[in-house]
């Protein structure tokens, strides 16, 4: 399949004389991180998560580019655990004006503050931390295509509100990513007027694969009355053993069960199956949220190149932040960037393992400008001033 696409590209390129030769170099920069051990090895994180999404987007752009005389290239730079990401980023910035960064939020912030990054376009494709979009971490050169944790949380709370499941219990895992997610869930529950009746830290040890049936019911037996049990377990540790194993028969949501995501294999409407098929042909696995964020980042900058006929980062940035920018993200609405913090606004599917349950935002949640801004930090709430807001 890949060979076929490449052959097609070559044919396309020769069918059209070059109009304006533009070349855009993109670098995908990854900081390897230590992943904490989890209770089950059933679902390992693929080693090529993220990079495959960028690769697919480059191949797609090459078709439009072939007709217009625009070419795109992509390189990967991987920094080992504990390695100097900023040094690698500085070298990459000498080489390419567009960098996708897959790294923890503090590392992303450090890269965006590099002197050499000032005129570049950076995309955060993996860090959901809201602070990276707020005054503390936001930068005019930094765009975010992965949804902020509060966007995903708002999507889930809208869903629960529509279902009238208003009383919640929460179990929070021990890792930093769990804390980011749990904080977002708490804030969002408050925003939408849902009641958090129980809020507990996960501190169980032992092999739950063996003892889940015994332990989870006991743990949840004393919980105050709730409609839904939320788990903040972003590393995929204990959450899988909570599902269908609670004392009271309650749906589970958050990191397991009813999950708000940037992307999931269960999406098929709005042309999503075509994107899923192209990705599976390329990567021989399902498309994951970080793949989607990387794909969206490359497609976004490519859309700006196509429409402006320029590879100048300042021109591309202005276009991406303008009202005319519209990216087809296969989620039923055009995607665009919030001009107050550089976050890609996007519908958030709420999914179960086997189906898309609904697509947020929901009709009941109105907005004066764009309903997508009912998810996450809206203009009036944003503390970011780097974008001139």
């Amino acid at each position, binding site marked *: 399949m890949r060979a076929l*696409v490449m052959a097609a590209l070559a044919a*396309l390129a020769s*069918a059209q004389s070059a109009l304006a030769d533009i070349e855009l170099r993109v670098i995908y920069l990854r900081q390897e991180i230590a992943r904490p051990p989890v209770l089950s090895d059933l679902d390992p994180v693929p080693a090529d998560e993220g990079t495959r999404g960028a690769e697919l987007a480059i191949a*797609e752009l090459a*078709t439009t580019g072939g*007709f217009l005389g625009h070419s795109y290239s992509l390189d990967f730079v991987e920094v080992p655990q504990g390695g100097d990401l900023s040094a690698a980023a500085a070298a990459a910035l000498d080489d390419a004006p567009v960098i996708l960064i897959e790294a923890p939020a503090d590392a992303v912030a450090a890269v965006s503050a590099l002197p050499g990054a000032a005129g570049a376009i950076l995309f955060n494709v993996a860090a959901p931390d809201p602070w990276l979009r707020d005054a503390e971490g936001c930068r005019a050169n930094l765009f975010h295509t992965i949804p902020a944790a509060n966007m995903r949380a708002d999507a889930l709370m809208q869903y629960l509100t529509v279902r009238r499941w208003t009383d919640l219990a929460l179990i929070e895992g021990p890792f930093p990513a769990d804390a980011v997610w749990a904080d977002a869930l708490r804030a969002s529950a408050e925003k939408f007027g849902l009641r958090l009746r129980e809020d507990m830290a996960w501190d169980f040890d032992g092999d739950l694969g063996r003892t889940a049936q015994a332990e989870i019911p006991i743990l949840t037996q004393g919980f105050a009355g709730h409609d839904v049990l939320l788990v903040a377990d972003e590393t995929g540790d204990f959450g899988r053993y909570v599902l269908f194993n609670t004392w009271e028969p309650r749906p589970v949501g958050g990191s397991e069960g009813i999950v708000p995501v940037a992307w999931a294999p269960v999406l098929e409407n709005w042309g999503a199956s075509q994107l899923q098929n192209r990705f599976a042909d390329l990567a021989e696995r399902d498309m994951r949220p970080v793949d989607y964020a990387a794909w969206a980042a490359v497609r976004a900058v490519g859309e700006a190149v196509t429409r402006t006929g320029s590879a100048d980062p300042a021109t591309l940035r202005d276009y991406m932040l303008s009202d005319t920018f*519209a990216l087809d993200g296969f989620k039923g609405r*055009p995607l665009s960037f919030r001009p107050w913090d550089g976050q890609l606004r996007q519908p958030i599917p709420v999914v179960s393992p086997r189906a898309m349950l609904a697509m947020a935002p929901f009709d009941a949640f109105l907005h004066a400008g764009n*309903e*997508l801004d009912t998810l996450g930090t809206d203009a009036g709430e944003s503390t970011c001033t780097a974008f001139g807001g």
Partner: protein
Amino acid sequence: MRFLLAAALLAGPAGAGEIWVTNELDDTISVIDTDTLEVIRTIQTGQRPRGITFANDGSVVYVCASDSNTVQVIDPDSGEVLHNLPSGDDPEQFVLHPDNRHLYIANEDDAITTVVDVESRTVVAQIDVGIEPEGMAVSPDGRIAITTSETTNMAHWIDTESRTLFANTLVDSRPRHAEFARGGAELWVSAEIGGTVSVFDVETQAELAKLEFEITGIHPDRVQPVGFEFTADESTVFVALGPANHVAVVNAATYEVEDYILVGRRVWHMAFNEDGSQLFTTNGVSGDVTVIDVASREPLRSIPVGRFPWGAALRPEAD
């Protein structure tokens, strides 16, 4: 008894027109009687039927069975599949060349336009186009075929003689449908995510106009133009606006939007009845067809069909 009944229906009153609607998630075609506005037959197809078009003389109907990777040739009288055409993978839309012999098929998953000779049942050409080819059109003189590619965001202009591309024009995001107008002097292309319809001068491939739509109370993001059809005199265009659940009425001479008509949910494609007095729109999400009175521009009735109706075609009257 059932067979008898079917036979009786087939011998129904001469002149009663039929609109054929493909139901994407039911693997069926619903046949609507244009007089009674009722579904009179349901025909089984291959998987995920979408594009549908009749041979010029009405002798056969062609259906893109996307997930069966074939174009089915169906006898409209018996409803039986006569044979399958080699179509390339995942055929979505197609257009029949005026020679009544060559189908130009968009292969959505393969970035290819396939040209099939319906008589010899062979693929005569495959043309590399952009990613997710979708809309197909052919000029009235048969010299130009158009493929739009949803992910490459272009209209690809195919010289039907040499079967090669001679131009590629950028359109707004996710182009869906293309039609020639004014005797082939203009090409119209809808862009679903861009929310626009572009009009090109065929001679120069230059953009003449870009239509935008605005419906009170509906966010512009939901206004997503997909299928559109010209009235026989080409004075008016009806444009399906997808999840905006409306059809726009556009003056084809001035490019101005004159009206919006409320229809079912996620409106895809449409077809006129034989005298052009009624327009039938397929509404994917609500699973029905809206009948619009063309003169008054009012919706007349909703007709329940199968799950996710997609394509629509008028069965030509037998001579």
